[in-house]
């Protein structure tokens, strides 16, 4: 459980690898069935963002413990073009979502902690944590 695993994202099928890893770790950690599926979808969204906007990047998934609370931590890293206006991208109902409720705001709503750090021309780092209840 102390292991931390990464999946490089270079093509669409790597998204499936990242999903698989997320499902497996969240199952091992004891997340319920629906939460496993939700976490998997969130990972899928992050990986898809890398694939679509940065071409290459990496998804890291690891179990963490904080003050006795167990959680799953997802890190998404890329060296893509970066996000120009984070406030706009994180805004709900922004046209990019098209009513899908997905994208970064969708991932944020699902997770307990969500941090984003992006620099133009340098890339984007996202950390998201879901606590095990």
């Amino acid at each position: 459980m102390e292991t931390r695993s990464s999946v490089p994202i270079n093509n669409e099928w790597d998204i499936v690898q990242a999903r698989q890893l997320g499902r497996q770790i969240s199952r091992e950690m004891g997340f319920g069935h629906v939460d496993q599926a939700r976490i998997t979808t969130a990972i899928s969204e992050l990986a898809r963002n890398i694939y679509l906007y940065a071409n290459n990047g990496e998804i890291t998934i690891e179990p963490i413990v904080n003050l006795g609370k167990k959680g799953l931590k997802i890190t998404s890293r890329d060296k893509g073009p970066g996000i120009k206006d984070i406030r706009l991208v994180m805004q709900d109902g922004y046209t990019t979502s098209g009513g899908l409720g997905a994208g970064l705001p969708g991932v944020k709503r699902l997770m307990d902690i969500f941090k984003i750090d992006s620099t133009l021309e340098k890339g984007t780092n996202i950390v998201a944590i879901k606590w095990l209840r």
Partner: protein
Amino acid sequence: MDYTIKLSQYERMLAQYIEQRDERALYKGQKFSRKMLEQHVSPEDVVSMHIEVVKRIIPHVDQKVMDSLEFLLEVMIGYGFAYREHQSLRTRQEQLDAEIDIAANIQKSLVEGEIPSGHGVDIGVISKPAKKMSGDYYHFVQDDHSISVAIADVVGKGIPAAMCMSMIKYAMDSLPDYRKQPGDVLSSLNHVVEQNIDPSMFITMFYGVYHADENIFSFASAGHEPGFFYNHKYDRFEELVAKGSVLGLRRHSNYTEYRLDIEPGDMIILLSDGVTECRTEKGFLERGEIADIIRSEMHSPAQRIVDQVYYNLEMLQDFVLRDDFTLIVLKF
């Protein structure tokens, strides 16, 4: 409500339906669905509950069936994301609505003033925004010798129109007293609008003054929807036509002043195009039809006339106003 309680409720209902297959169980299902929505339970949670209950109450379910349900759950996760966005949109919408309510109230308190009741004129006014904030504007001033009336319509609706409308109100308030003749008022306002308002915004306006001592109604119009003059002597409705360009179009505009002799029993009807551009099932309403409704209520007090016209047109349009609606009747 706790998850185990929900689960056992679902189990009871599902078991009842499987056993009896009656409408009563389905009605309970609908009520359950309502309760789940009230508690913001997302659709994938419902499917997940379903899977658990099926496992419990139907013995020896085919593995393929269980797998297929897993797959359905996966598809529903996407609907869960959309559902949570819905929740958050609702919250945002409620905030915006609260803001707009406040802004609409400020606007209302800006516009609403006393409706004059002197000089033997009976005045009725109704002004309803299509959305919460209005781009229509009206204003009365009464003094010892006259009653003046303004009606204006910002081209456009909603929040931006309402913001421009507030400006018109400040501009009207700061007009010097010696500029109160209809043509002068409009050319002063034209200047203010041209200088201060976004070039894409225009305002149409009608300004009239009833000179009680001379029984004369003088007026000018800046491209505003023509009103009606009810000529009591000939018992007919005439168009209150006046020419002039809309406010804000060019730096300097001049407005011709028109004059009408008023006799007892006459009526002046002023309106915004939201009244005449009332779209019904059969297409746009004819201006004549509006005159007909007014005629049928002509002997009532002015306020009742405008209320009745609004009520009739609201119903004809299935209670959807497509534009701000302002109607003023002056009965002499």
